[in-house]
């Protein structure tokens, strides 16, 4: 068997590419679903009535107090136990999406509550209804405020995707472990995997900075 890292890398290239593709699809799905759900969570926390707010608060407190690995395992085992045929990929993405939603919910809540009350008052004073106030005045400001923290959460999701290896989803970490079990070059390949994750997250952060610059208000 060829002993250089580069040779082994060339042999394993398809496996690694598949791993990266799987990692990206897990992360993307979890981020999208989690963010959409998270927006509703945030809205419920800010504008909901007492009962709704209590329920949603309990939801976010429990999710945030639980390690992500426990969420992934619970999702996997519980879903098959209650008869919902999810399979590891779907179960994992659901768990990550729920985790993401609790973080995004907090971010959205914080952003909306950070907007000075005077904004709502000025909107009321010119006769805007609540919906108009929210869509034209509050949400555009909140969205800008959310951006850095949201980019952070997106990077966290990419890192959390590695946990799906525990339930057998063939993402980058599991693929890396498969490769290592054949050629025993653990240091080199773990390092490669780390570098690939770094590249993905670096890309996400660069993208975030780009969007921030584009949407910044001139002063």
């Amino acid at each position, binding site marked *: 068997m060829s002993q250089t890292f580069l040779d082994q890398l060339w042999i394993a290239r398809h496996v690694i590419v598949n791993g990266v593709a799987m990692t990206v699809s897990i992360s993307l799905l979890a981020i999208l679903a989690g963010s959409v759900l998270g927006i509703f969570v945030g809205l419920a926390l800010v504008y909901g009535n007492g009962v709704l707010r209590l329920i949603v608060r309990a939801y976010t407190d429990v999710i945030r107090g639980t390690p992500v690995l426990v969420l992934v395992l619970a999702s996997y085992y519980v879903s098959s136990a209650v008869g919902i045929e999810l399979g590891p990929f779907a179960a994992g993405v659901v768990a990550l999406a729920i985790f993401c939603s609790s973080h995004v919910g907090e971010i959205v809540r914080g952003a909306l509550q950070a907007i*000075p009350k*005077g*904004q709502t*008052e*000025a*909107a*009321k*004073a*010119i*006769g*805007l*209804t*609540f919906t*108009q106030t929210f869509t*034209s*005045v509050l949400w*555009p*400001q909140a969205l*800008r405020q959310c951006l850095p923290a949201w980019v952070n959460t997106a990077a966290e999701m990419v890192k959390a995707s590695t946990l799906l290896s525990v339930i057998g989803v063939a993402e980058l970490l599991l693929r890396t472990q498969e490769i290592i079990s054949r050629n025993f070059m653990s240091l080199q390949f773990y390092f490669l995997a780390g570098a690939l994750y770094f590249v993905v997250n670096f890309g996400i952060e660069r993208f975030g900075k780009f969007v921030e610059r584009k949407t910044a*208000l*001139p*002063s």
Partner: protein
Amino acid sequence: MAKTMLEIKGLRKTYGQHEVLKGVDCSVQEGEVISIIGSSGSGKTTMLRCVNMLEEFQGGTISLDGEEIGYHVQGSTRRRKTEKEIARQRALTGMAFQQFNLFPHMTAAQNVMLGLIKVKKMPKAEARLIAERWLDRVGLSARANHYPGQLSGGQQQRVAIARAIAMSPRLMLFDEVTSALDPELVGEVLQVIKGLAADGMTMLLVTHEMRFAYEVSSRVIFMNQGVICEQGDPKEMFVRPKTERLAEFLKTSSFN
């Protein structure tokens, strides 16, 4: 014959245990410019904010150009109007705030246009023309496409006034609009307000600017502890106050 634009009868408001307004009666004719003065806690800002329902009130009635504001009152029953109704009524008045409260993510022109487009359902082009006209009126046509972050305090306040007045309100409300400004910027804002007064706009101003109140108001209302203590022509009141509290207040304020 001047018509009554605003009629306040027996206005009461409590904040928790504390009664902030204890029965205020006030009548404002069209075209009047009324300054409301008093120490903090006197209820002057609260009264102003009741007129456009930024504050709820528990007793009394407010009537703007003939229509009841905020609540349906029939005998002893009192029902709050729907949010839609209240929003429509708020558009009949214009308000300028101490902290300007411009929308930071919109240009000056867009700030002025928002109400016209969303509330008056005007097409964008028409709204743009009106916005530009009013920005020109307050002396800021060169800054129409600037964001609030690029404007000085005085400029922001003038845009805020333009935003309020572009809605063609029946009544303008000014809540201490110069208190947050650096002294050298106060003049430009007062100039704009004087111009609006000369054009015949009915205005209620809560203010600490005694000189302004003296020069421009047709009437001054002095509030103290939730009631109107004294009111009248500033030229009379400031020189010969009838109540002791007003005399005290004038002594401690920066007039003359």
